[in-house]
């Protein structure tokens, strides 16, 4: 499973981004238990489980940051817990910065996800 390879292998930039994405996703899924209708929570939890069951030799949490895009209920939870302007500004700044880096790598034929 993906988690096994994460523990076993060395980390690179993509692995760090994928790991942080997974941790954020797990946190939002947990918070979603209280914040979301069970329908959405079920969709996110089952999808996340499917992603974690994948195994790609030598690649840790393969493309987790891209796969997480379809976990849209997580974005609802994030929107709910960042009602204050400063909190949403922090989220937008960090997300935008990471997207600029990843997009810059992607269009230069560097594998990002």
């Amino acid at each position, binding site marked *: 499973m993906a988690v096994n390879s994460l523990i076993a292998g060395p980390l690179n930039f993509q692995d760090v981004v994928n790991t942080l994405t997974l941790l954020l996703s797990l946190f939002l899924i947990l918070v979603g238990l209280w914040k979301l209708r069970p329908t959405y929570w079920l969709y996110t939890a089952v999808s996340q489980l499917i992603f974690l069951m994948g195994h790609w030799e030598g690649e840790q949490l393969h493309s987790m940051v891209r796969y997480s895009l*379809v976990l849209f209920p997580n974005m*609802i939870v994030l929107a709910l817990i960042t009602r204050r302007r400063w909190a949403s500004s922090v989220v937008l700044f960090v997300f*935008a910065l990471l997207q600029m880096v990843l997009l810059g790598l992607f269009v230069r034929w560097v594998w990002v996800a």
Partner: protein
Amino acid sequence: MALRWALSVYLIARVLASVWAAAAVSVAPINVPYVGHPVYETIHQAYPHHSPLFDLLLGVWFRWDTGWYIKVALQGYHPSDGSVAFAPLYPLLIRSVGGLLGGEYLLAALLISNVALVVGLALLYKLVSLDFSESVARRTVVYLVVFPAGFFLLAGYTESLFLCFAVLALYAARRSNWMLAGVAACLASLTRLQGWALALPLAYEAFRGNGGSPLRTWPALLAVAGGADRYSII
């Protein structure tokens, strides 16, 4: 309101991503790892009428899996080249729309995913608005597009098409339109493997919203059937 917000967010993201992508490829020569690979060879079929401006605006999006989807669209599946990892609906649409566009398959791939993104974002806005305020709906849409991998929604990848069908399935289920929910879930399963994940929430929604009738869970079964059908096609 939902469509206007979705369109506004999309247009801003589209312009910023295109400018940033063009700038990133302009700073230094690129080492293309796919040269000589069967997927990269489809680049001449993917956009046959290119110019320097076309390269800068569209060519920068011919990357990685986009080549695979276009290869499957043009040449179909082959048992030993790795193409079976890519679900059939998106390549099928690329082939159809690309034919209508006179063989501009990269343009077709981008057009499909971008239209799906706008529709998906508008549906997401409406879905969130069922339970929460408009400001939460607006923030949700923005967060999704600005998410670190959000540019894949603008690229020739399946994320935006899947998102569109998945949100449509859940929105239709919330409105008790079970036929639409089932069809959308089936199409999601034909777009990405994890469409199967819609089966459980749809079954729950049907069971909860209709007096616990197990007969109402058929949309969920259709979602699974869509996924199974994908493999039978391959």
